[in-house]
């Protein structure tokens, strides 16, 4: 009964947010385009034969960066910006009264946006294959399934981290600058601009203990068929989710206790 109610809640939320997102198709298309940096990076890598020393062929590298693009498309999180705006405008108070955690609403928003984004990402991939026909490949069902899970886990990790940061809004009002700070290591260490294998040894020795390589590098390697430790990657992702979830719960509980509505 309870789980049924929960399911119908999620379903309604998704439906509402999906129609909401369909209103902003052009924006989402532009979002998708703004994620094409990995392709420029690929251009630098292959044009200067930087990948020779890594023992990765041009084709495998181009698949890697295409997958990095895809993983990034489906793991973009902006919950902190939404929450900050809502909290400054005083919209959080009515959300708190409802018998539904506001973050579920944001969660549905993100999922709905990803569904809307999917066709645009496919179009960009289509153009990519027109320019690089030799890198066309079809991953088998098993890897595809695993990499979808890995991408979803990557999304979950980022969603949890950002939700924790978003909860800081209860204390400081402007939490998005913390997010911008955290975005820098995400950008450079996640594998979006350069695969983690290419990193120097002194970085590689500790980076696999941080969540960053599991955000883009691991799912992208998995999907593109490059060498990667599947079990290790997935278990590290799960470990981080298990670690972050209670922190979020705690910060949320503390924050709502601290919260004083607008005007009080």
């Amino acid at each position, binding site marked *: 009964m309870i789980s049924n109610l929960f399911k119908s809640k999620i379903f309604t939320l998704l439906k509402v947010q999906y129609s909401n997102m369909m209103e*902003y198709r*052009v*924006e989402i298309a*532009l*979002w998708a*385009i*703004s*994620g*094409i*940096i990995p392709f*420029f990076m690929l*251009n*630098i890598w292959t*044009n*200067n*034969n*930087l990948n*020779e*020393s890594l023992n990765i062929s041009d084709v495998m590298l181009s698949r890697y960066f295409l997958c990095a693009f895809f993983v990034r498309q489906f793991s973009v999180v902006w919950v902190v910006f939404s929450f900050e705006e809502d909290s400054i405008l005083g919209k959080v108070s009515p959300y708190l009264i409802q018998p539904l955690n506001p973050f579920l609403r944001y969660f549905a928003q993100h999922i709905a946006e990803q569904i809307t984004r999917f066709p645009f990402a496919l179009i960009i991939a289509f153009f990519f294959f027109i320019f690089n026909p030799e890198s066309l490949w079809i991953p088998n069902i098993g890897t595809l399934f695993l990499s979808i899970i890995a991408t979803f886990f990557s999304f979950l990790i980022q969603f949890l981290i950002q939700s924790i940061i978003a909860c800081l809004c209860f204390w*400081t*009002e*402007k939490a998005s*600058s*913390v997010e*911008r*700070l955290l975005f*820098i*290591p995400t*950008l*450079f260490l996640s594998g979006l*601009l*350069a695969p983690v294998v*290419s*990193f*120097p040894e002194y*970085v590689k020795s500790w980076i696999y203990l941080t969540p960053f390589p599991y955000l883009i590098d691991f799912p992208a390697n998995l999907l593109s068929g490059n060498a990667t430790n599947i079990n290790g990657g997935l278990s590290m992702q799960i470990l981080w989710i298990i670690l972050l979830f209670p922190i979020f719960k705690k910060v949320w509980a503390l924050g709502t206790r601290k919260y004083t509505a607008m005007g009080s």
Partner: protein
Amino acid sequence: MGFGNKKIYGHGIMNPRKYLRVYTKFLHTSLASELEYKTNILIDLITSILSLIGSIFLLSIFFQNNKSIGGWEFEQALIIQGIYTILNGITNTWFNPNLTEIVKHIREGTLDFVLLKPIDSQFYISLKKITPSGFLEILLGFCLLLYCIKINQITINFSFLTLFLITIICSICILYSLWFFISTTTIWFVKTWNATEVLRSFLYIGRFPLNSFTFSLQIFFSVFIPIAFITTIPSEVFLGLSQFWKIMLEVFVTIVFLFSSRKFWLFALKFYSSASS
């Protein structure tokens, strides 16, 4: 009456002293409001330092097993990085906060108030706000450039400084025009906030030497989004490698960009119908 109107609206007459006075007021108010969030500024400072470290780290990966990329050595590529950092700081200090505001003005219909003011609307919209945390980025960029002067053994003389100054000012003007172009399209499309995000991601390429890309992309980045003019030419001037015609071309491109972005704004305003009409 006609004369009075002219005095109030200042059409046709640009009084530099008045504009300077207004600008100091702008500076004062926006600094006061930004300093409300002191910890924010501190975090932004750390962010810009980390960001520079990150891009140098990325560059060092590229040069791990290669001596040069697109004809640029690591020490030379650092110059591009420095110039990019300065320009990015300027973008974050002036362009970004103001021009994202245009989107808000148009969506909420407050552009009416701007247009009614007895001051040039482009001036008001482009310079109203300032985000001081971008200053550190500009400073960091200059420090990196000073370091580059040392490691590349560049001799500084008068002609070097003037040429460098000319090219960097041109870069700033081109960059401004690009931002202003995109923001102006808001008048038709209402929400182009994401379009600025697209521009941002394209500009990201300015961190790397243009020659490191394939020929087709080089053409694209010279013609459609003139990143070549924005960071590569000033860096070449910095190294004393640039030909004279390239600098002249940059000046020419800058004039075209500034002029057309102004015309485009005035053209777009004709299509502006305020929020409730």
